[in-house]
């Protein structure tokens, strides 16, 4: 009797043990083998415009950093790898989705117009384009206060940790990336670069640096170390800002420490537009989200699908509707003026988000692509193709 009971208990325990082993195995395998194909990831990802910066962002995520932490680390890296594109002297816009609250917010830390600027600045547009070189075009940099605000609201790792990988990159024998070298050798950019103060950084004598050439940048490394340890106020109200203002004053800049001190990022709700099964969240004016929303909302109404692309005539039809929509969108760009500085534009972008305007535009799109520019509100020769 007792033997029979013992055998039953053993069998039950064995069964439980086996079941537990199967569950553990399934959990382990699900974490290591995503059934999503070789190009997919199972957990998280970072897409920056260089491998080294995507890798830095991923490392931050793997250290339990938040997506905002990873983004800041990847951007700091990009300012070193692709300095032709962005950096601490620029501005940034974040769109952030918090899965816990379900909210999507925008932090706009794009540069602002300084208190003192050339009175007839915009009279110089035609001569200045396309490069726009010269201190008169400098806006108050917002990059670092943008990072700080994003980190304050959504950061998980210590601030300094986000800068360490890039500081190590700079201190460890940083070299010129092929993309940067391509820009340095560009025939349009090269003469202006050579005549500018950037020559000391990116030229070896009269020759622009080539891919894999050493790019010593100790001043930036020291700046990153200072910001990492002391925080961004050292730039906006402290000695780094003072040095920056003094340096660029020698090139005619009127930027002041007061301009830096006054800079504040703007935190707002993202624009929200339903697009069939999806909802699009994007940044409001003066950023371009309203125009993107308008374009996609108009296109959504044409119900394009894989089938639309199956035959040549269908492909032409899809792109014809796209072109026509882009023309109408171009005619609406005036709505992107900064509503805080121009109260008349307060609600100018609202129409772009609604179905009424989208429907009206769809009705005006036919098979012809030769309508007058006035058809699209493009009659005036507005704009200089910037943005």
């Amino acid at each position, binding site marked *: 009797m007792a033997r029979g009971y013992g055998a039953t208990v053993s069998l039950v325990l064995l069964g439980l043990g086996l079941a537990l082993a199967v569950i553990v195995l399934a959990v382990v395998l699900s974490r290591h083998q995503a059934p999503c194909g070789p190009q997919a990831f199972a957990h998280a990802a970072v897409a920056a415009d260089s491998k080294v910066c995507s890798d830095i962002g991923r490392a931050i995520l793997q250290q339990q950093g938040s997506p905002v932490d990873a983004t800041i680390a990847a951007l700091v890296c990009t300012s070193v790898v692709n300095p032709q594109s962005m950096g601490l002297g620029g501005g940034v816009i974040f769109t952030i989705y918090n899965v816990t609250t379900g909210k999507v917010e925008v932090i706009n830390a*794009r540069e602002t117009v300084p208190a003192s600027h050339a*009175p007839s600045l915009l009279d110089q547009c035609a001569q200045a384009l396309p490069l726009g070189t*010269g201190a008169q075009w400098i806006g108050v940099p917002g990059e670092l206060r943008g990072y700080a605000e994003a980190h304050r609201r959504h950061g998980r790792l210590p601030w300094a940790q986000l800068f360490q990988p890039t500081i190590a990159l700079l201190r460890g024998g940083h070299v010129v990336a092929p993309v940067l070298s391509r820009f340095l050798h560009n025939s349009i950019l090269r003469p202006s670069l050579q005549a500018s*103060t950037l020559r000391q950084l990116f030229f070896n004598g009269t020759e622009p640096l080539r891919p894999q050439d050493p790019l010593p940048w100790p001043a930036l490394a020291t700046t990153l170390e200072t910001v990492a340890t002391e925080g961004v106020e050292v730039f906006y109200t402290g000695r780094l800002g003072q040095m920056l203002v003094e340096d*660029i004053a020698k090139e005619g800049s009127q930027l002041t420490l007061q301009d830096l001190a006054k800079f504040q990022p703007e935190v707002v709700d993202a624009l929200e537009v339903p697009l069939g099964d999806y909802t699009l969240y994007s940044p409001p004016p003066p950023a371009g989200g309203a125009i*993107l929303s308008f374009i996609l909302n108009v296109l959504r109404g044409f119900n394009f699908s894989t089938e639309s692309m199956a035959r040549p005539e269908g492909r032409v039809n899809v792109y014809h509707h796209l072109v026509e929509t882009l023309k109408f969108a171009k005619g609406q760009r005036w709505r992107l003026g900064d509503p805080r500085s121009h109260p008349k534009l307060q609600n100018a972008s609202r129409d772009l988000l609604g179905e009424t305007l989208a429907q009206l535009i769809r009705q005006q799109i036919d098979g012809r692509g030769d309508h007058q520019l006035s058809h699209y509100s493009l009659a005036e020769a507005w704009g200089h193709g910037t943005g």
Partner: protein
Amino acid sequence: TSHVSVLGEDGSAVAATSTINTPFGAMVYSPRTGIILNNELLDLCERCPRGSGTTPSPVSGDRVGGAPGRCWPPVPGERSPSSMVPSILINKAQGSKLVIGGAGGELIISAVAQAIMSKLWLGFDLRAAIAAPILHVNSKGCVEYEPNFSQEVQRGLQDRGQNQTQRPFFLNVVQAVSQEGACVYAVSDLRKSGEAAGY
């Protein structure tokens, strides 16, 4: 300009676009801080009629809203209009997301819109949606085609009366991360030799 898309393990996401505006910004360098300065005020030129400056040139209202038609002088504290569109698309029912944005000045919106259209509606996977050559419409209503854009479609559009013109260079670059159920896909644009990373 540069864009970063991030999707975290818990499903939170960030799309961030950063810029000093045109390549190397104002080409003004602060040697003691190592910082390169932006030329963002150049974007204010967008609101001025070509060939004139701050002199207003009123135009009558258009039929879909009424353009103000003025070239306002800059206001201290103002931010210039931007094509930057760091965006997040969420399909709550299917647990899908697309975190996307791009670089390339006025090409940003065209490039991002076409990547979204191709991914969401036309059956492209994320990599193909970003790699596909784009078209752009300039402020004169002319179509500009990225090199390798389908000749067949170009001819078809010409037959429909679309004017086309050459653009000297295309700097459009898109980065995106998508979540489709349990799978995460990430693509950095090969136009800038980018490469995404994940785990």
